[in-house]
Structure formats: structure tokens, C-alpha cells
């Protein structure tokens, strides 16, 4: 069994009347890359801020590398690199000064670490440039350098590819994969660019309206995303009734143009066709198709009829 880096139990956060996190219970294991997926306001940043110690949970508990909040956890936090929303840069200080301050803060005695991580993120030519004069991509790389200077075992990155051009996205992805591989660092990364997360993560956690709605491995997601049945007929309400009656476990979505998408169980196609024919429904399309991660995300968060 893998070593557990983060475990949350019924973590809840309320802001006045709004529920930002609702009984979130997840477990992150060592050396995995977790993609944290959710729409705006789903609770991604709030969750990351809670586990980073910036905000306090209303209820529930969590442990980081086996330690619950307290003195021992404070020590473990030095092994956690974070970049939530924007990197926390001192704008008037240079790249090197920003990283050096972070090195001192995390108590890393290795003075060479500062220049090493600056080189790793490709900022050595800009190390004497003030942070406020950096481009968005460079700021993100500087944020990553700061997160890495303490030799972290766990990286928490919120939207790290926001504002990056395609070249920088590829660079960052390769960098994260390298850190994960070489340093056995667990990475917890959120992004709106799902296709990018798909290329990076080994596991995916879907959050919607403050609740974890699904946790899957890359392989499982690949399987789920791969194929679905697309049905087009002249009586969608009756089709839905048949689905609910004969296939209560399937996930389906009704879309505009009398289209019904049925996920996961391709083998039911023949049986479904039989029921539709018996009900006198005229089927104009009954085919197997593929869906993207984006489509899958839409299905499990918003477009699903039977949730």
C-alpha cells in the first residue's frame, strides 16, 4: 500500500450562508499526480487553501503526511510547496531574492538550492530581474521555483497553467512530470484546461458545488471517456422511461435535437434497441461514439439527467 500524503475526513467550509466545501473526504497517495477538476466556484481553491493552512475548516479534519493540525503538522508544511492562484511574489524583489527568501523561510540550509531551482525552471537569465517585470509565464515558473526550493514531497498547484502560452504549458508539464519522477513528489494540481490535466495526471478528482463527485485513475477515466451510445429517436420521454425502467444504473444525458447519450455500457445497445422497437419508437441513430474529458466532465457535473 502506498504511503498516504493527504487524508481529509468530512472537510467542510461555510462562508456565511454559502457552502464552499461539503464533507470532502479524499486520500492522496505518495508519488501520484492528482488532477483536481471542477468548474469556477466548485471549491477547488478553497480546498487547497484549507489544506495549505490559509483558511480554517468549519468542520471535519485532515492530516498531512500523517500529522493533524498542530505543531507536528507545521513542521511537515515545510515539505509542502504551494502555489495557489497567483504565486505569492514580492514584486519589488528580484527573482533570486524571492527564491532566497523562500529558502530561508522553509529552513533549507543548502544555499545552492536557490540557484539550482532557478536554473531548473529556466529563469537563470532573469534572476536579477524584479518579479513585477516578469511575464505571466515567468511568474508562474518563479512560483514553481519557490514551491520547489524546500525539496517538497507534496506540491499543491492551483491553476498553474493559467495565462501560459502553449510552449510554456508544455515546459511546465514536462517539469512537473520530471519532479514527480525524480523526487517522488506527489502533485495535486487543478486546472480549467482539462485536456492538459489529462496529459499530466495519474489520478483525477472531480469536485462540484463543494462535493467530491468522482475519484478515478487515469486508466479508469480513459475507459469512461472512451465510448458512449448516441441515440436519436422520435420519443425522448418514452426513451428515458425505458432507460430508467430497464437500465437503472446507467448514466445518460438528454441533449438538444432529441439526442440521448448513454455512458459506460456499450453492450446494452442491442437490448435497448429491442425495448425501443417494442415501444414503437422510431430510432434514427443508435451508434457508438467517443467523448472527450470535457464532455465527461459536463456529464458528471451538469448535464446528467439521473443525478
Amino acid at each position, binding site marked *: 500500500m502506498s504511503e498516504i500524503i493527504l487524508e481529509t475526513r468530512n472537510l467542510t467550509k461555510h462562508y456565511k450562508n454559502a457552502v464552499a466545501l461539503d464533507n470532502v473526504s479524499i486520500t492522496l497517495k505518495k508519488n501520484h499526480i492528482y488532477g483536481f477538476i471542477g468548474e469556477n466556484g466548485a471549491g477547488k481553491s*478553497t480546498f487547497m*487553501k484549507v489544506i*495549505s*493552512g*490559509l*483558511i*480554517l475548516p468549519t468542520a471535519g479534519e485532515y492530516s498531512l503526511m500523517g500529522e493533524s493540525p498542530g505543531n507536528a*503538522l*507545521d*513542521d*511537515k*508544511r*515545510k515539505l*509542502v510547496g*504551494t502555489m*495557489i492562484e*497567483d504565486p*505569492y*511574489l*514580492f*514584486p*519589488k*524583489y528580484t527573482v533570486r*531574492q524571492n527564491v532566497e*527568501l*523562500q529558502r*530561508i*523561510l*522553509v*529552513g533549507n540550509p543548502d544555499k545552492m538550492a536557490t540557484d539550482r531551482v532557478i536554473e531548473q525552471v529556466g529563469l537563470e537569465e532573469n534572476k536579477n530581474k524584479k518579479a513585477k517585470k516578469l511575464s505571466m509565464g515567468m511568474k508562474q515558473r518563479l512560483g514553481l521555483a*519557490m514551491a520547489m526550493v*524546500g525539496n517538497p514531497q507534496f506540491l499543491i498547484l492551483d491553476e498553474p497553467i493559467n495565462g501560459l502560452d502553449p510552449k510554456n504549458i508544455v515546459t511546465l508539464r514536462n517539469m512537473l512530470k520530471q519532479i514527480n519522477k525524480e523526487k517522488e513528489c506527489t502533485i495535486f494540481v487543478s486546472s480549467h484546461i482539462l485536456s492538459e490535466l489529462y496529459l499530466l495526471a495519474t489520478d483525477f478528482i472531480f469536485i462540484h458545488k463543494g462535493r467530491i463527485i468522482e475519484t478515478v485513475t487515469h486508466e479508469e477515466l480513459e475507459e469512461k471517456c472512451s465510448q458512449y451510445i448516441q441515440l436519436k429517436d422520435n420519443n425522448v420521454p418514452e426513451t428515458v422511461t425505458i432507460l430508467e425502467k430497464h437500465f437503472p444504473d446507467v448514466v445518460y444525458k438528454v441533449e438538444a435535437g432529441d439526442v440521448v447519450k448513454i455512458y459506460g455500457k456499450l453492450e446494452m445497445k442491442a437490448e435497448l434497441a429491442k425495448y425501443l422497437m417494442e415501444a414503437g419508437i422510431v430510432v434514427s441513430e443508435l451508434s457508438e461514439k467517443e467523448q472527450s474529458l470535457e464532455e465527461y466532465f459536463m456529464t458528471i457535473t451538469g448535464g446528467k439527467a439521473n443525478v
Partner: protein
Amino acid sequence: MFNLMRIESFKLKRFTPFYVSLLLVGFMMMVTLVKGLKPDAVAYWGYTCMHDGFVDGVQDCSLAFLFGMLIAWYVGIDFTERTIHRALTTGTKRWMIVVAKIMATSILTLIMHLLLILEDVIVYGRTFGFSLDGFVPRDLLWLGVVVLQLIAYNAFFVLISVICGNVYSALFACVAVSAICGNILRNFFAGFYVYEHSFFCFAKSSQNSDLIPCAICAIIALVILVAVTIVVFNKRDVAN
């Protein structure tokens, strides 16, 4: 804590508003040096020697609003630029951050206050002749009590800045409160025992009747303010 103080010291050395304030005080010093002491003021207060400059300077609260502004700026900017997140996410205890901020801002304001005393001593020395006559070891005790009051004063404005949670509202609140409590109320509460021995008024003499109540008040205020700030900060989400 040591690492945190190293970082605060790095930031202090590069805190531009502090240097601008120093320039301002330097400019004031130059103006006073050129103009000299007003003869009617000398006659009214009975100034006779350089030591009177020390007496005048050590209890001078006229930079109160400037102190309020510097503290708000120094503490508030960390919230606005979200650099305070760096300390929090690396497991620095919140009470350490509060103590480090009070220590750092106390250094800033102490330098400013010492400069003010120096200015007065030089101006008076230039008028009456440079001489150490009148200076006694007890003056150091007086200065020590004023430093204690200054630290309590800093703790008060650090609390306001932590409650505000951003540089702009902290600046407004601290400058307003420091100008009202440190500058304006002095005209209304002259002779009011409690106010005159609070940290808004620095000890007026080296007599025990002034130093003891001022020191007790400063220590009590400091303990309460630090405790309240830590409690407020510990219960606070830093989520901007």
C-alpha cells in the same frame, strides 16, 4: 523565529516608505536647524541647555500619524500582496508572525523617534551650546520606558492592520486612529491621568511618578494587544 526575523530584516532594509519618512524627518531637521528655536518659545518654556532638547524630543508624539502610516503599510502590504501566505503555507506559526511584525515595526518607529530626539538635541545644542550638562543615567531609563510605550503603540497598530487585512483600509484606519489618539486628543485630554500615562503620550519626565505608571500601562497594553492580535489572527481566514 530566527528565519522569520531574517526575512523581516531583509524587508525592513528595502522598505521604501521608511526611507521617504526619514527624508521627511531629515528635511524637518534641516528647516529647524536653519530657523533655530523661536525666542518666545524659549522664554515661555524656559529652555536653557542642550539637555532640554532631549527632554523635549523624548516625549514628542508629533510623529504619531507617521508611525501609524508606516506600521499599516509594512503589515498591510503583506496581506495585499499575499506574501503573508508564504509564511503561513510553510508552517510558520501565526503568533510568530505577529511577534515578528511587532518587532520589525518597532525597529522602524524607534529609529524615527531616535532621529526626532537627535534633531531636538542638535537644534538645542546649536542654540545653547553643545554640552552634556543635565544628562543623567536616569535619562536612559526614561528612554527605555518610552521605547516600551512605543512597542505597545506598535502592537496596537499591528492589531488594527491584521483586523483590516489589506494595506489600503489599514492605512486609512491607522492614520486616522493615530492622528486622533496620538495627535488630536492630546489637546483635549491634557491633565487626564489615564490618557497622559497611556502609550499615546510618551512619559513626560524621568520622575517615578511618570515612569512607573507609563511602564505598567505599556506592559499591560502590550500583553493584552499581543494576545488579542494572536487570537484574532489565529481565527482568521487568509483567503484574499
